[in-house]
């Protein structure tokens, strides 16, 4: 059995997390840092809190485990299992966590996690009116009423 290298990820609020190399390297950002030899075994992540990092690591651990089960090609059963796990993972996090996860996945460049979380937000948006989307995501309407009317007319009359 090969001994896997251990990385220590340090969150912005000082929490440390020990993770196996394979887990850590799911982040392209970390992978590049390691390649460029600009970090030792301890990797500081100044813009990710411990709470969020916990979730990121949870995701990465699960996804490593599944990949290493087969020969690199996931069986359809494993794909299904992973998909269900992902859905469960998403459903257990609140909106604020979701957005912080997106930012973390973006910064750490973890493609699958970014896809999952962005799809999650997209699913929240679908079928909603602009007003509902604003309310849901706490976004301010910064259009003038003329601009808004113009866009609304263009959307309705032309692009519907």
């Amino acid at each position, binding site marked *: 059995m090969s001994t896997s290298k251990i990385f220590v990820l340090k969150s912005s609020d000082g929490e440390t997390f020990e993770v196996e190399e394979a887990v850590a390297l799911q982040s392209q950002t970390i992978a590049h840092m390691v390649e460029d030899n600009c970090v030792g075994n301890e990797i500081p992540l100044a813009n990710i809190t411990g709470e969020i990092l916990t979730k990121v690591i949870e995701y990465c651990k699960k996804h490593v485990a599944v990949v290493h089960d087969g020969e690199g090609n996931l069986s359809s059963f494993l794909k299904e299992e992973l998909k269900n796990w992902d859905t469960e993972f998403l459903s257990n996090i609140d909106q604020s966590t979701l957005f912080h996860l997106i930012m973390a996945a973006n910064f750490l460049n973890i493609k699958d996690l970014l896809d999952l979380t962005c799809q999650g937000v*997209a699913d929240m*948006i679908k079928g909603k009116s602009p007003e509902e989307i604003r309310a849901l995501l706490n976004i301010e309407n910064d259009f003038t009423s003329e601009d808004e009317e113009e866009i609304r*007319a263009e959307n309705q009359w032309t692009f*519907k």
Partner: protein
Amino acid sequence: MDLRLPSKVLEHIFSFVDSNEDRNSVSLVCKSWFETERLTRKRVFVRNCYAVTPAAVARRFPGMRSLTLKGKPHFADYNLVPDGWGGYAWPWVEAMGEKYPALEELRLKRMVVTDECLEKIAASFKEFKALVLTSCEGFSTDGLAAIAVACSNLRELELRECIVEDLGGDWLSYFPETLTSLVSLDFSCLDSAVKLSDLERLVSRSPHLKSLKLNRAVSLDALGNLLRLAPQLVELGTGSFSDKLNQEAVSKLSQAFSELKELKSLSGLWDVLPEYIPLLYSVCPGLTSLNLSYATVQMPDLVELLSRCSKLEKLWVMDLIEDKGLEAVASSCKELRELRVFPSGADVDETNVAMTEQGLVTVSEACPNLESVLYFCAQFTNAAMVTIAKNRPNLKCFRLCVMEPFAPDHKTQQPLDEGFKAIVESCKDLQRLSVSGLLTDKAFEYIGTHGKKLRMLSIAFAGDSDLMLHHLLSGCESLNKLEIRDCPFGDTALLENAAKLETMRSLWMSSCCVSFGACKLLSQKMPKLNVEVIDEQHLTETGPDSSPVEKIYIYRTLAGPRVDMPEFVWTIHKNPEIGVSHLAIE
């Protein structure tokens, strides 16, 4: 929580938002969302090419990869829109070609596409992948050759019911040997024979080819070779199905059909001889879509064929199917979603075509997923419609075309008001309705009262008075397209419901009682509507305001009056002093 997602992340989120409905909502959330959305929208739908200028569309969506455009009003399909009316693709192609060469797909419906246009597409868009033309006209096979020779990444070339100037079958031979990306090819509406060896070579070097729709000139013999080269086909439109083949050829063809393991859709079948219908039996169990609208197959053969199509979801057929044939559909095709029955033109007396309202009733009873119906029939009854409505409250589209104008219920001689009432009352999600037969204003009162989800409505030879239009415009909240011909309604309802017209895409009226004066008033009252009068007899210029107009097409627009009108189309100018003009004068 103050959320400011970087635009790169917003872009990624929006990449999972596909529908235009959702993208339109996204664009209205706030300024940064509007910007990110417009820069990332790839597929743009413009359902009335005159509702907006090409420049405005190109400006808003510079990243557009796929453009869908519709031109002429729907009644153009029934030859009610004169030639030269408009719907030109050129301004769009020109606008995109200049600044947005990344365009990959053009899907046009009821538009005029010239060879010059096709040449411009071929020259401007290096990544061009898909050209789908439905009910278009104005081009020749030379234009097709231009596309074939230049578009090295072409995936789709589909000509659906187009009117093409056919200068021969050479165009197909212009596809270069290096083109291997073809997924879909439909040249079923062309007359001339293409060079078979070139077609075979094209098919054999197209491993991704999923849909192939041949024209009538491709013989049955040739079909066998093509099927052997493309056993992966999912959609097949055959050519003529009537050569006399020898026994060996027949069994080879049968073998070729049985190799089509992926086939889901079948069409073409021109002139199909009854003895060749069994050739199709092996593909029937897998078929979800069958278009027999060109195949003069008689009822007994249809029964044999359809009883093997247990997965069928879409069936287009001629009335040669008769009630008995529809019984077979009812008992075998339980997955049926869409049924269209077209008139064969066969004379009832001569060939004893026995298709009545009963056929549709039987299907409505037995097919729980039936949601879309187009039914041409000589006559109908209220009782039949009541039964259909009761059986199928899930109908979304109901187009009944009783062919004799003003035909009453043939059993009771009553108007068909009660039948349509049952339909709109029961089918709460009905989105499209065509009515026919003898109808009074009451029918339209019912439609206005119950047709709350109705988006498109077609009416011909119906109603008693202006009230009809008033019921519809004031009652049908979701109404988007209304087309009316030969109905006795006039000015009052139109002017009273003027505001409604801005909530709709378009209104077409021909051979009604709308006066020229009302058109002028309407146009002045509603600045964002284009009120166009089609007047081939040139009465508008000289007649009094009270004279009725032949045809009127009203649509909302952000582009102002159009500048490409022919001399028989008048736009009512917004300035009352200028009055009527052919051109958009500022």
